[in-house]
């Protein structure tokens, strides 16, 4: 089955953020494919490469990155929701004259149309949060 995930919850604050990650791993291990993971609402914080949890805690951004590298996952963060919450990639930081950025590949910033596209082109869209 072709599955897409919509992640609305913040990493570390909400269990559903980790559930999304664990669900994605389980789906891939069971032979399903993941069309796209779309991060929206508070879920846009998931892609911040500045996350620095303690050593005995899971690094959620890092785990998505590793999973993406292993399975070529499409990880898309809603650009409008991300920018207002201070999650920018290099390109957006330059555009808005900011000195820092915290979103890097494989996470991409793109529009809400990518959520609609994922929904239409998947058998199931599963929402977390």
């Amino acid at each position: 089955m072709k599955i897409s995930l919509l992640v609305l919850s913040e990493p570390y604050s909400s269990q559903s953020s980790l559930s999304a990650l664990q669900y994605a791993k389980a789906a891939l291990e069971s032979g399903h494919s993941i069309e796209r993971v779309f991060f929206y609402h508070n879920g846009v914080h998931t892609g911040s490469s500045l996350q620095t949890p303690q050593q005995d805690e899971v690094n959620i951004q890092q785990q998505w990155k590793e999973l993406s590298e292993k399975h070529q996952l499409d990880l898309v963060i809603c650009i409008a929701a991300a920018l207002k919450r201070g999650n920018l990639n290099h390109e957006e930081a330059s555009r808005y004259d900011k000195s820092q950025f915290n979103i890097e590949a494989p996470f991409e910033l793109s529009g809400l149309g990518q959520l609609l596209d994922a929904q239409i082109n998947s058998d199931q869209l599963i929402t977390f949060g």
Partner: protein
Amino acid sequence: MSKNILVIQRTAPYGSSLAREGLDYVLTSAAYDQNIQMLFMGDGVFQLVKNQNSTDIQLKSQLGAMEVLPLYDIEDLYVIKEDLAERNLSESDLGLPIKVIKRRDTHTLIEQQDHVMGF
């Protein structure tokens, strides 16, 4: 190709930005020529209350933002009768033209859709 998508709004406006971001999804999807219907249930019915004034909390009015819906050809809006009653609201308290349906009829509405999206 156009799909029939039901967007379910379940959260009150302002306490969380989810109501507003759900509306952004609605407007984006309509701009991509999808057939959107909306259902307000649970605390989501508070989004419809008329005379909202959110100026003092520095947020845009949720109801005001929904006034553009007819421009996007989104005219099928539904609210659950029991969810209004449980919150001491009636149709006359609402600021948008809307169809009031019984809770037990929501499954019929959902069955007519290609996709359902909840916020």
